[in-house]
């Protein structure tokens, strides 16, 4: 059995070979490289990658690091290109899962086309691998950066709120939306598998702690991703007709069962020097988020 994962899945049944080949240019402990391993559950995946870290990971010209077809596109056009590709594949009768693998930066910049594709209910899967800043260009804060997190454009800590992208996408009334974490890979694989069985626009928001960007040791990627879930700072949920908090996050519905938030915050350089009031403020924001999602669970039964 896989610790911390879905109990119904055995490790032997999980895909082990990644569609990303070894010796690629990803950083040490890269969360995208872990997340991309999950793509092997899809049948004939075709990747569409807007500018971002994954563009770099895909390789330097004569060699390619992916052993699946990859289409590099500009920031704003990712979902639009995917829509066109889906239409042409449908016309040609090609069976493929079109996956748009974007970062939170591309989701900010390409939000118009992303929203458009969701409204048209295009037959694509969108995975936003969210490392909570524009890491590839040098850690500028994005709309999903946590409140008070230090980035190069917010050296005193970000003063704006964090945007709940997955909930915004869910409100487009798409058939499938979920959040996932690289710390719980079996859960992400399950969600990707379930998404692949549905037609229409499917959205997965993947939480990806970035060692150089968040300033922690490269060995702690999985540990910190799990701490985010255990402290309740990142909540795993799924919507496919009905809304539910999924298994790794389930025990933390009860606030008393959560790991103290300080455990999560003190491991990261981006939250260095946070005052006690700020930590309390973050705790109340997390509590609000839980209330919001639990109310959702009640509504979308």
């Amino acid at each position, binding site marked *: 059995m*896989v*610790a911390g994962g879905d109990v119904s899945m055995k*490790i032997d049944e*999980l895909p*082990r*070979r*990644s569609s*990303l*080949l*070894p*010796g*690629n*240019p*990803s950083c*040490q*402990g*890269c*969360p995208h*490289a*872990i997340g991309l*391993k999950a793509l092997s559950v899809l049948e004939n995946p075709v990747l569409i990658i807007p500018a971002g870290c994954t563009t770099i990971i895909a*390789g*330097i*010209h*004569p*060699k*390619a*690091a*992916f*052993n699946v077809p990859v289409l590099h596109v500009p920031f704003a056009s990712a979902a639009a290109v995917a829509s066109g590709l889906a239409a042409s594949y449908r016309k040609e009768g090609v069976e493929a899962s079109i996956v748009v693998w974007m970062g939170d930066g591309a989701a900010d910049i390409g939000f118009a086309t992303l929203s458009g594709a969701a409204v048209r209910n295009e037959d694509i899967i969108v995975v936003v691998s969210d490392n909570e800043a524009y890491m590839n260009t040098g850690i500028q804060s994005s709309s999903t950066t946590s409140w008070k997190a230090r980035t190069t454009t917010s050296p005193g800590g970000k003063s704006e709120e964090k945007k709940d992208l997955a909930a915004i996408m869910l409100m487009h009334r798409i058939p499938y939306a979920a959040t996932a974490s690289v710390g719980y*890979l079996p859960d992400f694989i399950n969600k990707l598998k379930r998404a692949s069985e549905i037609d229409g626009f499917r959205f997965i928001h993947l939480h990806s702690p970035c*060692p150089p960007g968040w300033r922690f*040791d*490269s*060995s*702690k*990627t*999985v*540990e910190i991703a799990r701490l985010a879930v255990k402290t309740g700072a990142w909540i795993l949920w799924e919507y496919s007709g009905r809304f539910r908090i999924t298994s790794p996050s389930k025990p933390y519905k009860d606030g008393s069962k959560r790991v103290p938030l300080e455990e999560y915050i003190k491991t990261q350089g981006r939250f260095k020097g946070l005052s006690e009031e700020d930590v309390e403020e973050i705790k109340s924001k997390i509590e609000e988020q839980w209330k919001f999602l639990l109310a959702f669970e009640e509504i979308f039964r």
Partner: protein
Amino acid sequence: MKHSEYLIAKPSKGSAGQTGLWRSFRPVYHVERCIRCLLCCFYCPEDVIEVHYHRFILFHYEYCKGCGICASICPEDAIEMVEEEE
């Protein structure tokens, strides 16, 4: 070879060169402590841990970047990070 062939990138290992050279700590496997849960192999970002027969593991040091995720995730401390010598 046609000219257009040069334009197409082919999937191959080591697209960033021999990434094993980036490593400052090397994962060392202690077989006797291993319970063969394969979590290391499952979470290895670089995909350099190969499963051998009887679910024992084998590191491919050529491309291992030495991030240390395998050692930190191991429930039995069967992987140790040892500093590389010159």
